[in-house]
C-alpha cells in the first residue's frame, strides 16, 4: 500500500474506527515511515487541540436550573401538588358550605319538630282537645272549609283500630293548618296538615321517622300538602295511619 493510501486511513486510525487488522498494519507502517508518522502525529495533535478548544461554551447555571425544572417530574409533581392543594382548599370550602347548609337544615328541622311537638303536647294537656268533636269524617272535613286555605280527605277508619276524635285549627310559623286527633288503643295521634312550602320541604324531608321527647314523628307530602303524625304509638300504627291518609288523598 502506498503512503498516500495509508494517509487516507490515518483519521479513522486516530478515531479508533479502523478494523483491527488494518490498525496493526498501519502501526507497523508508521514505525518505518517518517512522512506518515509525522502526518499521524500532526493530526493527532490537531484532534486533541480541537477536543480542548471545542469545549468552549459553558451554559449559565440559571439556564441549567430552568431546563432541569422544566423536565423534572418532581417539579411537575409540585405543579400538580399546587393544583391538588387548591382542589383540597376548594373541597374544604364546599364542605364547610355544605356542612353549614346541613346544620341550618338540621336546626330548622329541630325547631319545626319542636314546635309541632309542643302543639301536640298542648293538645294532650288541653281540657278541650279539639274544636270539632266528631268521629265522623264527613263532619270533620267540612268544618275546616274556609278556615284553612286547602282541603283534604279524612280516611275511612271503619274496621281499623283508629278512632277519629275531631279536629281544630292550628298555626305553624304563622301558616294556618289542620290538626286532626285520633286514638289507637288509648294512644293519641295528632295529624297536622299544612300547605307544603319549600321551607317545610327542606326542613322535614319525606318519609323519615323522627323522635322528639320520646314521641314518634313521621312526615310526608301528598298533593301539595304536608302531613305530620306525632304520637307515642308504635311505628306500625304510624305507618298504618299514614297509608290510610295516602289512600284517601288519591
Amino acid at each position, binding site marked *: 500500500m502506498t503512503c*498516500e493510501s495509508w*494517509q*487516507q486511513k490515518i*483519521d*479513522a486510525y486516530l*478515531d479508533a*474506527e479502523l478494523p483491527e487488522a488494518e490498525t496493526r498494519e498501519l502501526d507497523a507502517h508508521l514505525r518505518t515511515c517518517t512522512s506518515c508518522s*509525522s*502526518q499521524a*502525529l*500532526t*493530526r493527532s*495533535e*490537531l*484532534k486533541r*487541540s*480541537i*477536543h*480542548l*478548544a*471545542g*469545549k*468552549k*461554551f*459553558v*451554559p*449559565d447555571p440559571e*439556564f*441549567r436550573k*430552568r*431546563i*432541569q425544572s*422544566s*423536565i*423534572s*417530574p418532581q417539579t*411537575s*409533581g409540585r405543579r400538580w401538588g399546587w393544583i391538588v392543594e387548591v382542589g383540597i382548599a376548594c373541597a374544604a370550602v364546599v364542605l364547610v358550605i355544605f356542612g353549614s347548609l346541613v346544620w341550618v337544615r338540621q336546626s330548622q328541622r329541630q325547631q319545626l319538630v319542636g314546635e309541632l311537638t309542643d302543639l301536640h303536647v298542648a293538645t294532650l294537656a288541653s281540657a278541650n282537645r279539639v274544636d270539632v268533636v266528631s268521629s265522623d269524617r264527613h263532619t270533620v272535613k267540612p268544618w275546616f272549609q274556609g278556615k284553612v286555605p286547602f282541603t283534604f280527605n279524612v280516611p275511612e277508619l271503619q274496621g281499623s283500630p283508629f278512632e277519629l276524635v275531631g279536629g281544630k285549627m292550628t298555626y305553624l310559623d304563622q301558616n294556618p293548618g289542620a290538626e286532626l286527633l285520633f286514638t289507637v288503643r288509648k294512644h293519641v295521634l295528632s295529624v297536622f296538615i299544612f300547605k307544603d312550602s319549600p321551607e317545610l320541604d327542606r326542613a322535614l324531608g319525606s318519609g323519615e321517622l323522627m323522635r322528639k321527647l320520646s314521641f314518634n314523628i313521621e312526615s310526608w307530602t301528598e298533593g301539595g300538602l304536608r302531613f305530620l303524625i306525632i304520637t307515642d304509638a308504635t311505628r306500625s300504627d304510624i305507618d298504618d295511619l299514614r297509608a290510610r291518609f295516602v289512600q284517601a288523598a288519591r
Partner: protein
Amino acid sequence: MALDRDKANEFEQLSMPLFASLYNLAQWLTQDRGEAEDLVQESYAKALKGFGSFQPGTNFRAWMYRILRNTFLTSRTGLKAARTVSLEDEDDPQSVSPSTTETPESILLARADQDAIQAALQQLPVAFREIILLCDVEEMSYREIAEALTIPIGTVMSRLARARKAMRGLLAGVQGVQR
C-alpha cells in the same frame, strides 16, 4: 401524551448529564448564546415529549443530538447556514485527497493558539463544524454520528475527511497570515 412519573424520571436521568455538551454544540451551531439557549430548551421540550417513542437500548446521546440538530436545521439560523455548504461527492471517500497545503510545523504552531482553532471552527460550514465537534469534542463513534446525523457511515467518513481537510486549510491560512 404526558409521560408517567417513572418515564419522566428516566428522561431526566439520561438527559441532564448531556446538558453541558448539548449546550456547547448548540452554541457552536448557532454562534449566539440566546439562540443556543432557545435551541437547547426547545430540544429538551421536544425530547421529553417524544421520549415515549424512544427505543430503549438504542443510543440516547445520538437521539438527543439528532433532535437538537433537526431543531437547529429548521430554525432561521439553521436554514441560513444550510445554504452555505456544498456536500456533493461526499459519499466518495476517495474524493478527499490528503491535504498538501499545510505543513506539520504550521499546524503545531496553530495548536498552541486555541483562539485560532476556535476561529477556524467558527468559519467552517455548519455541516463540517458539527461533524468535527461530534467526533473530536463529543468523541462519538462513526456509528453514533451516523445515527445523530441520520446519514450512512460511509458518508460520515467522507464528510469528516472533507471537514478536517477544510479545517487544516483554514489553520494553515491563519498561520500564513501570522507569518
